[in-house]
């Protein structure tokens, strides 16, 4: 096109000809050329590109997740079970009966006072001492009352009860034999002498009260009331054989430590049935402790051993350690446990180690970089949109519009930003705002507070450009306002905008890091370089685990440095006074 009949219109003498200069550079290309001659600027660009690759591509390449917690298995000594001497009364309620808590308190009072009956909530309970620390609680129901007056006895059955003559004869027989009970039709009747009145009553078993702990050999065995009563009675009387519920049992009593093993006699065989002891042994977890294990524990406690060996399910011998604390024994054993891999030093698996949450630091740095850079860019975009529009309007229209907008800018400048961030941060903490939404709120706030400097710059530029003669020329040519703004004004502000935006990016990343460091910005589980460095608020971490915070600090330093280098380079490249 350049050579297309160039001499068509004018003679060569009038042509200001410098056609030999073929290379035509647009102002943008000139800036680029000058920019790339600046070594620091190129270094900055390389830094920034590598930061972007690190954050955005690195996050895709890393095998780990942002919030992946690394764990490992280790064998450590853990509490397995506890044993304690039982000093409290235990209550074994008869089937279908309840012994309320209030009555339990009355019972303790009665035992301490040596009384054999007590009243609780209009219910008359009788206390029958069956042995040492072994009571039976019975509730009597009156069947008949015999009042003897002047040698004449008069029998009156209780309301709703019948007292047959047969029963009467049995009663008389019992009185004769000096017994205080008689049995009729499978029910035991008690003869209670109370002065001149004799009361014949049915007894209702309520509960057994003792300090013995019973445990069955087999998980399926349910130790019922009758067995418990018979067994404890046997322990007190020393009878080695007794019969309950149609089965015969044999007892092996250990008087010294007040424990006993009961065997069920079936077809001439002795089957281990239950263990009674005043020690209570419970597993820390919901494990079922076998009676053999309990016996082993009791044995060890008796012998005063500090450790014992007991085979586990597979028959392997496991050593248990017995730790005594007053009347409490703790049984500990070495168990394989899952542990979080905290503060692991750099290794092949974790190039920069793991942090206090057992997460891979390198991976978190990548994701943190994403958030830091994203916040930087989005905030700058918000600032640019608001700043350019308001600054442009103020500069182009001038007058009271300019005055209004610039006073608004002054007001925004007056807002103390750090206290505001702290307040907003704590408000967000209080409202338990989702960490993801928090990031966006943070961006908006940073953007809303950051635009005034851009607005001022744009306004100043447009104000001075507006008075330039080329703007007067566009008016004289009748160019539309829209074209005048976007074709003539805006392109002339772009250089300053680019510089200020680049410089701003660095400072916003710093601000974000500061806020996250103080716990006001990006929150766990999201990573940001700032909240990774936050680990140093523990002095032990700071001095011992350099790999946790040094890399994040370096990344912030390098990135901000990169942005500043690029910003400086752009400013120099845009400066027309700089020689090419």
């Amino acid at each position, binding site marked *: 096109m350049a050579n297309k009949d160039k001499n068509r219109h004018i003679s060569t003498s009038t042509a*200001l000809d410098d056609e030999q200069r073929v290379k035509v550079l647009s102002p943008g290309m000139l800036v680029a050329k000058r920019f790339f001659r600046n070594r620091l600027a190129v270094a900055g660009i390389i830094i920034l590109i590598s930061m972007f690759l690190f954050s955005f591509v690195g996050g895709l390449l890393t095998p780990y997740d942002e919030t992946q917690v690394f764990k490992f298995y280790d064998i450590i000594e853990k509490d397995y079970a506890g044993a304690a001497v039982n000093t409290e009364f235990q209550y074994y309620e008869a089937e279908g009966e309840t012994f309320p808590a209030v009555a339990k308190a009355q019972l303790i009072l009665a035992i301490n006072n040596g009384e054999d009956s007590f009243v609780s909530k209009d219910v008359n309970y009788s206390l029958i001492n069956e042995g040492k620390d072994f009571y039976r609680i019975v509730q009597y129901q009156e069947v008949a009352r015999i009042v003897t007056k002047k040698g004449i006895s008069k029998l009156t059955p209780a309301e709703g009860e019948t007292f047959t003559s047969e029963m009467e004869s049995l009663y008389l027989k019992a009185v004769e034999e000096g017994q205080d009970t008689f049995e009729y039709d499978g029910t035991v009747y008690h003869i209670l002498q109370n002065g001149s009145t004799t009361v014949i009553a049915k007894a209702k078993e309520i509960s057994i009260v003792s300090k013995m702990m019973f445990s069955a050999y087999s998980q399926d065995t349910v130790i019922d009331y009758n067995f418990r009563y018979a067994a404890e009675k046997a322990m007190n009387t020393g009878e080695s054989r007794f019969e309950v519920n149609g089965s015969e049992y044999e007892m092996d009593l250990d008087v010294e430590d007040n424990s006993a093993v009961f065997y069920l006699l079936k077809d001439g065989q002795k089957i281990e049935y239950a263990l009674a002891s005043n020690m209570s042994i419970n597993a820390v977890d919901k494990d079922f402790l076998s009676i053999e294990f309990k016996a082993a524990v009791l044995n060890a406690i008796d012998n005063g051993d500090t450790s014992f060996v007991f085979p586990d399910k597979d028959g392997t011998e496991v050593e248990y350690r017995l730790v005594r604390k007053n009347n409490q024994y703790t049984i500990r054993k070495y168990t394989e446990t899952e542990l979080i891999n905290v503060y692991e030093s750099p290794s092949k698996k974790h190039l920069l180690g793991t942090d206090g949450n057992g997460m891979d630091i390198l991976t978190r740095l990548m994701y943190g970089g994403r958030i830091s850079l994203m916040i930087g860019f989005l905030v700058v975009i918000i600032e640019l949109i608001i700043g350019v529009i308001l600054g442009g309007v103020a500069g182009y229209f001038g007058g009271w519009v300019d005055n209004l907008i610039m006073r608004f800018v002054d007001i925004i400048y007056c807002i103390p930003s750090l206290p505001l961030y702290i307040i907003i941060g704590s408000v967000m903490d209080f409202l338990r705002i989702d960490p993801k939404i928090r990031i966006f709120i943070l961006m908006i706030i940073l953007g809303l507070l950051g635009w005034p400097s851009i607005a001022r710059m744009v306004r100043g530029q447009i104000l001075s450009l507006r008075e330039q003669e080329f703007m007067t020329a566009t008016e004289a040519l009748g160019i539309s306002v829209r074209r005048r703004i976007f074709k003539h004004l805006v392109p002339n502000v772009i250089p300053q905008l680019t510089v200020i935006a680049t410089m701003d990016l660095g400072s916003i990343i710093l601000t974000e890091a500061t806020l996250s460091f103080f716990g006001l910005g990006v929150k766990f589980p999201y990573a940001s370089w700032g909240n990774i460095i936050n680990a140093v608020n523990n002095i032990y971490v700071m001095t011992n685990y350099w790999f946790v915070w040094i890399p994040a600090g370096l990344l912030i330093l390098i990135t901000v440095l990169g942005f500043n280098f690029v910003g400086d380079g752009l400013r120099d490249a845009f400066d027309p006074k700089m020689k090419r």
Partner: protein
Amino acid sequence: MEDKNKVNQVSEDSQSDYILEVRDLKKYFPIKTNVFAKQKGEVKAVDGVSFKIKRGTTMGLVGESGCGKSTVGRTILRLIEKTDGEVLFNGKDIFDINKKDLRKLRTDMQIIFQDPYSSLSPRLPIGEIIGEAVREHNIVPPEEYEDYIDDIMAACGLQPYHKDRYPHEFSGGQRQRICIARALAVNPQFIVCDEPVSALDVSIQAQIINLLSDLQKSRNLTYLFISHDLSVVEHISDTVGVMYLGNLVEYGKKEDIFRNPAHPYTQALLSAVPVPDPDVKMNRIILEGSIPSPANPPSGCKFHTRCSKCMECCRTQVPEVKEIEEGHFVQCHLYND
């Protein structure tokens, strides 16, 4: 283009010989220190200026710096609003029409600025600078656009390949040519040349002056040529106006003004023109002091503070404009009866 010329000729026949008539034009700039303060006063940049320009001629407007020459030029184009008076362009008052019609009218009146550096947008290539308004106003059909721009550029001594270059790649003279091409591209009838050669060196000045003269002849243009350089004005003008402190103190045909200057100020100006001959003894009239502030102009004749022929009446009475010979107007008490 031929159509347009035809239109021009038609309008020439139907309208008066005068393309522009300025009647008692006034432009006062308010003085304010800040928005809340009261207006302290006003700068009377243009204080009652009247003149007429014939179609196809050049009027030179001379005066010291700050006397209001450029303000007159810009007010005529309605680049700044007037305070009072009338500007009739082809018989229509340009301050009477609305903004939409004004935009259409813009193509008929153009301006060339003094500083060729600040008058070109640094971020646009030359082709865009020249052609922008052509497309904006649909001066030519889109298919003829490229050739049209080439023609205009060629007419101004620019090569077609300059189109892709940016202003910073040109010298001052070339830039001024670009400015002229930009003004010519919308095919105007009237151009205000606001000191177009003051920023250029003498050899380039000659080129630009000659270019303007050539274009005037070929396109029947009318110029208002604002300058402080009397020799340039003498070379290019048909009529000349001399301004002092917002007033047109003398106005007439070039020959009348330069041969027979009537106003003491014009006489002083002309005596200061350097003559390139060391043997010629100059009889200069030295003006004492500097131009007074237009915000607080002297009473009576504004020139009386520096005038060598100052009389008593000059201090109190504003002199009237007198026609001392045909087409030669002077505002001075010397010519009052």
